[in-house]
């Protein structure tokens, strides 16, 4: 419950504060969002599985975002940024899908 409030507060803060994203970081924003979504759904699922762990959540969030950004950066340097970010999105997308399916099973028993 508090987590949801914190999320809403973060969104409100972002909308209200409206920070300027530096141009160098802009290409990594979408991929960071996907990585963050993966961490969120993983955390929600773990909560429903009753195995949620704060440390695990924090570490997985930070490392997900950093690694995803790093992979895309590396890809950009090698000239395969588009393909690598597709790969990242596919892997994270599969995980998000799987976790959402598990959450759905928890919530609706179906």
């Amino acid at each position, binding site marked *: 419950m508090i987590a949801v409030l914190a999320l809403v507060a973060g969104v*409100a803060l*972002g909308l209200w504060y409206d920070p300027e994203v530096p141009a160098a970081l*802009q290409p990594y924003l979408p991929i960071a*969002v996907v990585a963050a979504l993966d961490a969120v759904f993983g955390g929600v699922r773990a909560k429903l*599985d*009753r195995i949620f762990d704060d440390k695990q959540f924090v570490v997985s969030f930070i490392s997900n975002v950093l690694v995803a950004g790093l992979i895309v950066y590396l890809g950009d340097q090698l000239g395969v940024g588009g393909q690598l970010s597709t790969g990242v999105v596919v892997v994270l997308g*599969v995980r998000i*899908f799987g976790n959402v399916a598990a959450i759905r099973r928890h919530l609706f028993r179906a």
Partner: protein
Amino acid sequence: MTDAPRDGRNRGDRVYAPDFLTELFRNPLDPGYADAAARRREDPQSGSAWRRWPARSVTLVVVLVLGFLFAVAYRQTMEDEPGRSQVRSGLVEQIKQRESETDRLSERAEQLRAEVARQRAAALGSSEAARLRSLEAGTGLGRVRGDGVVVRLADAPKDEDAVIRADVGPSQVLYSDLQGVANDLWAAGAEAIAVNGQRLTAMSTIRQAGQAILVDYRPVTGPYEVSAIGPEEMRDRYDRSRSALTMRTVAEETGLSFGIREAEDLTLPAAPDPRLRYAEPSVSPSPSPSGADRSVSPGPSRSGTSPSPSGGG
């Protein structure tokens, strides 16, 4: 429930299944959660209250950051969008503007050309002027009027694209169709041809650039009307030509429309003046004088000589 609960003991020697993707699909949750849960079960003190509170607050901070990230990404995407469409509409505007400018200028060129023709007719003898006019009509540099044929080609309506049949090809008019029609009209005896009001000359091109068809580097859009002025039997001759047969078959199979009709009193505009090209010797025999010559001559001598080819015929 995770379908494969792991206990803490084999945590160290956890191996990824040889097929990483299968593993990914089967068990999307980070294995770390199961490990942590197992650790806690084994050693309940590790998650005691004094340690849990800072961790909880860190989690809350991370969630806050998450929301912040989402909001920023949303903002960013929304901000980019108007910029992108603005740039696009700006470009469209520029294209429109330049096109209308080109139209205006070519209209002016037309007027000036008519003026030149009038002056020339006044200066020349009537027989020479007539010869010049007929030459201009033949080469596409003069406006012509007469009876002839209009061949109309149009893309198939869009909704029929839903059933694309691989064996019959696209249901759009291709540049090669227009080329075929124009070539067969010349072969059928046409004296002057225009595609959508663009007069064809001996040096005209019909090309494709992306989705657009360019006639002499100016885009034309469907429906395409190829008007030709020529003798009376041109229509029958064209009717039997290869491109007419092909296009009729294509029209039957793809739903593209193709029609030939006779037309009276067609007016075909003049083509823009051709850019005259000059041959230059590939190797100048004596470099220094010819180089000096060239540096002086181009401006005046070219503008001076340019009327002479058309004047001399």
